């Protein structure tokens, strides 16, 4: 069976996970292992007047009780946001100081103010309880509306009025004029609910300082260990890079939450140096809810103008985004360049303008969560398209068709240049799979059972393959977003691929070797993937933004090109043939048109014995490459959701969910489908169930799985997933990326289906039974009045 590109190769990594032999960070135990327990602010906003550590210091097993003044006194730097955004007046974003342990002020419930290091977790926790912190409670702001109001309590002296930036994209005046002249204007105020990412493995860190080597090792739950090392070194001054090894072993899901460098890893490293112990910290689920960067949390007012032929003439959006108490690593980019640049959706829109203000609030920091900005854009556009179609009295599919971009490349008015796609093909495929035409019959059948049936669609586009380094640099990114790879061929012909991508569920150990099988005809078992360790892999930017295929694998392809070229040179020399006649297939190196050939392993051995190499050639067969993408990639597709709502209770059941995606080239369809399933589940979770809820004092009410509604198996349907492919012209494999699509495309499809069922467009996420019931009855009341 082929194990090349397009084959459904079963996952190599599964063996260890199904037998319980995966190695996650919390499974690591170092000698001289101690445990960290954090003292966290119970208040959303409070002045720290004093910390009395002495009751804890004398408790059994306690090695140290450390606070923020000691941390900053030791020169540990503040946590930074790595993407500079300038306001429209040209001023830089207002970044408030964030110390890994708060010194003067605690700014959200869960903000760490001290840490206890003890010889057991139970003892560390008991001692953390005994630390006495004298707080002066300050007024808190929870919503962006409160934060930006006149006279609001101020979080950071650096950010007057709690405003971080006031940014815009697109041309305001032409957009306003186009909308003013429009035949019809769809106007909506749309909230994108705050969610908690919830990878099932809580964040964890094990830090070890070796005094004799003056060297640190950090095991951590990271999607990008090299970036973690760079930031820990360059900005937080924990240790120079060559004195710090960061290992991200098996990581139990990320979804964005494990991109950032959090206070806990910094503190564990520092505390390890202070105490000369290995220091382990693993979040409990409550800590995860309090401290893992949340996602979304936008409020937008939007107007979409249509001409008399139902073509969109202008789209204007005013968004306020909540960034929480501090600016996390990529937080500034999410509601700007990852959001507003996608506001053209799949449609040909000449005029777009978007204004974005971001605010500090006394809540958990907000950063990228699966999709990051693109779900917010898609939700806005696709709810408005559906609402507009209903207002205009035309089929929602027809309105979309009328406005689809059909020629590529297509330059939108908001930076992005779409390179390829066939939106009609995805729409057609999804409608066919969903039996769109047969919906009215199904609606009648449901009605006869007393149920309200609805159908809703969403045509999403996203920008992945993050990202061309020079382009993102010009937009404010503090790093380049290329990827690296090294292909090490052993003398016996087996291969190690070292990659800067990181797998935390994506199956890289299976997919990446398929590139080698495809090219050389070697069994994928002969290929080992090495990742997640800064001592082994030289550098890498990690995995997020659906970039491991389009960017990470492109780097591998570049390195394989070099390996192939050298192997052919060696073989030509050994076989006394012309280099141009050498072909490598089925694990053999052949001279085309003859029976002369060598085994792949013979050529590899030849490279290392170096007895008979072309003159001047260096021995060995090992090549590296850095790949910097030339453009973003643009996965797109159409999702159709069908629901049945019980009007008595407001309970929604998804009876069918269809996805038709264009991901470009697919290396392993089994893994790609799995990514779509998981993405849809997260999107459905956001649409129906999930919300991080704060009370007016800033207490997180949804701080456990008792309160935060994670999607369970019986909340979800089976999904119908298929692909309509156009090849991405921007990278050597033609890949667009598949990791986030499900979470981007599904929320509007779900809400459009429910609003279609109940006949009321005024519905916000999460569409809980109570909200749906209220919306049904509001519609009934309106109908009765009319």
């Amino acid at each position: 069976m082929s194990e090349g590109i397009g084959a459904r190769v079963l996952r190599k990594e599964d063996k260890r996970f199904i037998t319980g032999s995966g190695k996650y960070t919390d499974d690591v135990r170092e000698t001289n292992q101690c445990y960290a327990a954090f003292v966290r602010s119970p208040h959303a906003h409070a002045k720290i007047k004093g910390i009395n550590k002495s009751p804890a210091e004398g408790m059994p097993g306690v090695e140290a009780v450390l606070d923020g003044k000691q941390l900053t006194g030791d020169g540990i730097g503040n946590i930074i946001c790595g993407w500079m955004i300038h306001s429209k007046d040209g001023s830089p974003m207002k970044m408030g100081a964030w110390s890994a342990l708060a010194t003067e002020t605690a700014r959200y419930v869960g903000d760490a103010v001290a840490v206890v290091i003890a010889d057991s977790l139970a003892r560390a926790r008991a001692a953390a309880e005994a630390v006495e912190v004298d707080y002066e409670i300050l007024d808190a702001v929870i919503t962006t509306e409160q934060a930006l109001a006149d006279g609001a309590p101020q979080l950071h002296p650096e950010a007057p009025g709690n405003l971080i930036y006031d940014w815009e994209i697109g041309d305001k005046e032409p957009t306003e004029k186009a909308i003013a002249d429009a035949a019809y204007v769809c106007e909506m105020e749309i909230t994108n609910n705050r969610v908690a990412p919830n990878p099932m493995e809580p964040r964890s860190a094990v830090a070890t300082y070796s005094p004799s080597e003056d060297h640190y090792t950090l095991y951590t739950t990271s999607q990008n260990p090299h970036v973690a090392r760079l930031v820990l070194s360059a900005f937080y001054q924990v240790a120079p890079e060559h004195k710090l090894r960061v290992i991200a072993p098996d990581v139990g899901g990320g979804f964005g939450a494990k991109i950032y460098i959090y206070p806990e890893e910094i503190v564990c490293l520092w505390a390890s140096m202070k105490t000369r112990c290995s220091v382990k910290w693993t979040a409990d689920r409550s800590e995860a809810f309090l401290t893992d960067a949340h996602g979304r949390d936008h409020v937008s007012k939007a107007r979409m103008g249509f001409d008399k032929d139902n073509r969109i003439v202008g789209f204007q959006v005013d968004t306020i985004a909540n960034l929480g108490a501090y600016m996390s690593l990529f937080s500034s980019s999410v509601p700007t360049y990852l959001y507003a640049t996608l506001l053209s959706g799949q449609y040909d829109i000449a005029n777009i303008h978007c204004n974005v203000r971001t605010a500090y609030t006394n809540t958990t920091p907000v950063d990228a969560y699966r999709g990051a900005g693109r779900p917010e854009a898609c939700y806005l556009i696709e709810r408005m398209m559906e609402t507009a179609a209903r207002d205009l009295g035309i089929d929602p599919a027809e309105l979309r068709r009328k406005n689809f971009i059909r020629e590529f490349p297509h330059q939108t008015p908001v930076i992005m240049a779409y390179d390829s796609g066939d939106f009609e093909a995805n729409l057609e495929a999804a409608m066919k799979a969903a039996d769109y035409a047969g919906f009215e019959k199904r609606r009648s059948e449901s009605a006869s059972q007393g149920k309200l049936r609805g159908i809703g669609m969403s045509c999403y586009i996203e920008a992945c393959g993050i990202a061309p380094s020079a382009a993102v640099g010009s937009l404010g990114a503090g790093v380049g977003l290329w990827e690296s790879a090294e292909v090490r061929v052993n003398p016996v012909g087996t291969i190690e691929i070292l990659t800067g991508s990181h797998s935390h569920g994506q199956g890289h150990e299976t997919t990446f070797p398929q590139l080698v099988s495809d090219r050389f005809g070697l069994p994928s078992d002969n290929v080992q993937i090495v990742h997640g360790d800064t001592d082994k892999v030289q550098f890498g930017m990690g995995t997020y933004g659906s970039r491991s295929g389009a960017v990470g694998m492109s780097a591998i392809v570049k390195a394989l090109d070099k390996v192939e070229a050298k192997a052919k040179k060696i073989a030509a020399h050994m076989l006394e043939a012309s280099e141009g006649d050498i072909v490598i297939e089925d694990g053999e190196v052949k001279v085309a048109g003859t029976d002369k050939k060598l085994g792949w392993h013979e050529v590899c051995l030849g490279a290392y014995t170096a007895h008979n190499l072309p003159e001047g050639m260096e021995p060995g067969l090992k090549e590296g490459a850095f790949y910097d993408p030339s453009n973003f990639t643009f996965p797109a597709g159409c999702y159709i959701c069908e629901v049945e709502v019980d009007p008595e209770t407001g309970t929604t059941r998804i009876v069918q969910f269809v996805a038709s995606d264009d991901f470009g080239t697919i290396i392993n369809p089994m893994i790609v489908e799995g990514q779509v399933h998981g993405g849809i589940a997260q999107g459905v979770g956001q649409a129906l169930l999930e919300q991080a809820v704060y009370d007016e004092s800033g207490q997180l009410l949804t701080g456990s799985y008792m309160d935060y509604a994670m999607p369970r198996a019986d909340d979800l349907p089976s999904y119908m997933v298929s692909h309509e492919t156009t090849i991405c012209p921007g990278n050597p494999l033609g890949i667009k990326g598949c990791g986030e699509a499900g979470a981007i495309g599904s929320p509007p499809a779900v809400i459009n289906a429910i609003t279609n069922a109940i006949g009321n467009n005024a519905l916000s996420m999460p569409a809980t039974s109570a909200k749906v019931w209220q919306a049904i009855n509001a519609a009934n009341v309106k109908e009765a009045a009319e």
Partner: protein
Amino acid sequence: MASVSIKVNGKDVSGEVEDRTLLVEFIRENLRLTGTHVGCDTSQCGACVVHMDGKAIKSCSILAAQANGSEITTIEGLANGSELHPMQTAFKENHGLQCGFCTPGMIMAATDMVRRYKESGRELDETAIREELEGNICRCTGYHNIVKSIQDAASKM
């Protein structure tokens, strides 16, 4: 302190533990069997499911001392030597896992689920599987392939 003697994966083990020690802590920290995971603190997520005297339990919700004298099977003890349990094979063949963190608990809960339905002669259809998975949370797979895995294994167990 409590004395605990348990048969774990067919092997007699014993130890002195603090009274408050949870079974999952005993398994992970004392026995260093780290395949059993902890994903929450409120017994919702099911990453810690093991079998106690043949029945699935959440090892975060029972004290090690309460397990004294029992027989425990963890994910490490499910395979018969090098021969995987049909549920393990089914999860691999149906791509029923991604990050792998919830997987041990899923597999242990699923084997118990199939056993219970077979013993009582009830049909384990998709609806039943989804309802039965109420106590196991997965964030990666959207459950689609987990349900398929369990259906597949059920036909082979």
